């Protein structure tokens, strides 16, 4: 396969997505066959673009919070002083993952009410594990020789962490963030069951009114976002890995 083909496909996907979000009317003829009884073809209870932006915002907020907490936790338990909390923090983060997202939503609603908040809580809990695990892997599999050289040069604990350990773990940490973003993009759709403004709204509206066109456009936008963001983050990850010298290509 030619090297430019994947790039071209991605570009086409971006163009298609932007066109659909800004001018969904253009695509009406395509989706028309999926509807019956003259039902509306394009989602009409709100702008698709606004929903997409809100969807992304929810995922972004949850991922940023999950990254901060997970990375901080991983740093803490890999320091000599925090080593005894390693098993505890591992199981705590695992619990976050074994809880079904719907259950998290159901439990969060009475506590924080309907809307974006319960969704943020669910996404946050779901995002923690991959980032935590990857940061732990990164920080515990550093080349011993390099870390010792940093000590030998007279770096303090903080200097080692900031100048050597975190930069060298960056590609692996980014891998964890990428995973949790993609999980979050998908999981955010169910947030609409508790009235969060996400693309799930479109899908749910389609399910309620038996409108296949709605379901499809909601699902496709989420899928396109996931593919593009996954690709973009992978590229950043590869770039960082090269910059950190971990790949001798």
């Amino acid at each position, binding site marked *: 396969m030619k090297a430019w083909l994947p790039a071209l496909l991605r570009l086409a996907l971006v163009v298609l997505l932007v066109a659909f979000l800004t001018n969904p009317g253009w695509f009406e003829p395509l989706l028309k066959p999926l509807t019956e009884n003259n039902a509306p073809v394009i989602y009409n209870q709100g702008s698709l673009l606004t929903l997409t932006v809100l969807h992304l915002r929810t995922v972004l907020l949850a991922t940023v919070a999950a990254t901060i907490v997970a990375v901080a936790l991983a740093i803490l338990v890999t320091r000599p002083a925090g080593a005894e909390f390693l098993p505890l923090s591992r199981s705590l983060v695992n619990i976050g993952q074994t809880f079904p997202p719907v259950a998290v939503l159901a439990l969060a609603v009475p506590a924080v009410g309907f809307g974006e908040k319960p969704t943020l809580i669910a996404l946050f809990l779901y995002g923690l594990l991959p980032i935590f695990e990857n940061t732990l892997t990164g920080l515990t599999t550093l*080349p011993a*020789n*390099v870390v*010792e*050289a*940093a*000590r*030998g*040069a*007279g*770096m*303090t604990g903080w*200097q080692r962490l900031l100048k*050597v350990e975190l*930069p*060298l773990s960056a590609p692996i940490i980014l891998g964890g963030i990428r995973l949790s973003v993609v999980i979050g993009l998908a999981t955010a759709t169910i947030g609409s069951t508790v009235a969060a403004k996400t693309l799930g709204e479109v899908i749910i509206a389609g399910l309620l009114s038996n409108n296949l066109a709605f379901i499809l456009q909601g699902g496709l936008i989420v899928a396109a976002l996931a593919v593009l963001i996954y690709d973009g983050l992978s590229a950043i990850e590869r770039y960082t890995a090269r*910059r*950190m*010298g*971990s790949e*001798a290509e």
Partner: protein
Amino acid sequence: MIEIEGITKRYDTTTVVDDVSMVIEPRTIAVIVGTSGSGKTTLLRMINRLVEPTAGIIKLDGADNRSVPGYELRRSIGYAIQGHGLFPHRTVAQNIATVPVLLGWDKDRINARVDELMTLYQLDPQAYGPRYPHELSGGQQQRVGVARALAAEPNVLLMDEPFGALDPIIRTKAQEDLLAIQKRFGTTIILVTHDMEEAVHMGDKIAVMDAGKLVQYARPAEPAISSRPWSAPAKGRSGCCRSDGCVTRWRTAPPRAKPSAATPASATHWPSYCGRAGRRYR
């Protein structure tokens, strides 16, 4: 001056360095030789406190090395780690500048120092300065590791097999350069090597370690060194002889262990000259 007094390091029940005492006179080079696993690296790392001793005291110019915080101590002592340990995410120039940056030197001084050291080690600063370690050969990496140790002009330099990956010609050059630097700045150097020629050539004194103990510490010319165990392979040790003399080599495995499936003879690091003209003993 470095005074090592009754230094012992134990991990659980195994004693890795066993009651070692030695004095390294100022402005001299002490070379440590010994079998793999005899505790050379551990001894070296107790001087800059990368390893804390179980017992004993180490004094640098009369002051206990525990009188300043570890990181401060280590900034004042050059350390060329075994196997270079370069930072893979930093350029060659940034690697060399590590300690000067930590010490807060100004930019111009750091750049001048980096250029000087790179030129000394025959790495063109323009071409090699911006490269990353994985873009260098093993020998070049090792020279950068030594340059990094020298960067802040330390009074004391700890070098753990710094020239192991260099070819004979560059190795000789690197040895001469180190001797010149040592003469010029009056640096006190402790150097670990597996190469007896290098030990004799570089060392004002040679320390022989075996199973954590310091078994000899003498000038190269003194009989203790020139006779046993260097002149002929002692029992349980391996060595090689060529027309102008013998060199005892130390096995990878502890001296008493016979080479077995677990420690094949091929794992032994023979000096390069043994293979060519030497006759090998087992």
